[in-house]
């Protein structure tokens, strides 16, 4: 039976841990709400961008834009959007598993690591890093992700990269996040939806100033940047919800551990009382016997 004092110490430790995990859970919960809100706030821009592209797609010779065309030169690149900090459950391991699977399909592939965890993973697994981005702010803004979109855009236009994919955690709900591999370059063909076509038939043609091709040239980079930014927002929302859930589990486990330990502590306390009583009683009995024999 362990020492009573040791058990008391362990109860205290478990209590302290649960205090910390509780606080971290709370912090993540508020960060998660903010991340989710900012993911929703970008919707108007994305919608405006998509509808503009649809109008443009019909008016211009869209297939010739270099960001849309496939070429055979160069190697494939995957951007892993991981976290800087740990303690977020199975989030990073699932990302890394997907990365290994991706590398199996793309033998010549190189990796752009975002977040310290991805950098550490690449070092451990001996994966060739092309670039690394760490210490991005918690609340990402488009300005923070532009350097990444510039990197992949330039690399693709210089025909250094054949294709670029993003690997990140897609936010489904607080409890569910899914690994998502999204190819961003070459940009997927812009499909004109039927609603847009009906619009076109009913309404007059758009005027493009200076002309449709020039506007498209300028708009497509924004489209790429927006996809990267969106992926980041998803990844951030996933990170915070994963951390919140794992911290919640940790607090619960600490509580369970504490109640188990308390049981052990009470048992050992009772045992010590019983043995003390036994001592007294046996001593008394022994004395009685002594007096009786005399």
């Amino acid at each position, binding site marked *: 039976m362990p020492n009573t004092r040791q058990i008391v110490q362990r109860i205290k430790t478990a209590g302290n841990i649960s205090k910390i995990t509780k606080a971290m859970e709370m912090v993540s919960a508020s960060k998660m709400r903010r991340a989710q809100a*900012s993911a929703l706030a970008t919707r108007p821009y994305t919608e*405006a961008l998509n509808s*503009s592209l649809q109008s*443009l797609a019909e008016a211009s010779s869209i297939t010739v834009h270099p960001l849309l065309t496939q070429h055979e030169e160069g190697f494939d690149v995957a951007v892993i959007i991981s976290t800087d900090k740990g303690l977020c459950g199975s989030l990073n391991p699932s990302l890394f598993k997907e990365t290994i699977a991706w590398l199996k399909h793309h033998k010549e592939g190189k990796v752009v690591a975002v977040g310290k965890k991805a950098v550490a993973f690449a070092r451990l697994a001996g994966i060739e890093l092309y670039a*690394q981005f760490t210490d991005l702010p918690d609340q990402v*803004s488009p300005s923070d992700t532009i350097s990444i979109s510039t990197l992949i855009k330039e690399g693709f236009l210089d025909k250094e990269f054949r294709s670029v994919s993003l690997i990140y955690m897609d936010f489904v709900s607080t409890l569910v996040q899914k690994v998502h591999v999204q190819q961003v370059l070459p940009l997927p063909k812009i499909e004109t939806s039927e609603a847009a076509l009906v619009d076109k038939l009913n309404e007059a043609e758009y005027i493009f*100033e*200076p002309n449709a091709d020039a506007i498209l040239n300028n708009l497509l980079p*924004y489209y790429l940047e927006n996809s990267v930014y969106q992926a980041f927002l998803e990844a951030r929302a996933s990170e915070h919800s994963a951390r919140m859930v794992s911290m919640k589990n940790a607090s619960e486990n600490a509580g369970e551990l504490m109640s188990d330990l308390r049981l052990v502590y009470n048992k050992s306390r009772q045992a010590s009382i019983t043995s003390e009583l036994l001592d007294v009683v046996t001593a008394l009995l022994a004395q009685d016997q002594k007096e009786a024999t005399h």
Partner: protein
Amino acid sequence: MQKLKLTVVSQEKKLLETEVESVSAVTTQGEITVLARHIPLFTQLQTGELRYLEGDKEHSIVVSEGFLTVNPNNEVIVMVDTATLARDISVKQAEEAIAAAKETMKISEDRRELILAEASLKRAMLEIKVAQKRGTSGV
């Protein structure tokens, strides 16, 4: 008089949504003013002032480069870029990221070499020990 529905959006959020009489903006081709029942238009904005008439009051906001769309249903959508400044330094940041990755690769290369060197050293030590043992037992 018909009104225009003006929406200004940035990458991060919707900045403005209001009913206006007219919108004036500086495009790459020069300044334009859009009134209700304007022909559908798609144009590029320069950094400058965006003025709009709301009732009798004229408001003005400063917008960075972006795009202006006039839709057939009297809708004006302005997409502005909040990250213009960051774009200028993004190439440098991208280069820094590549350099950082090279540094990481070098460090892990060094570490790998160190581990390999350590392993071969250990093996050598072991071989010496074995040789010594054999030597003593042989004598």
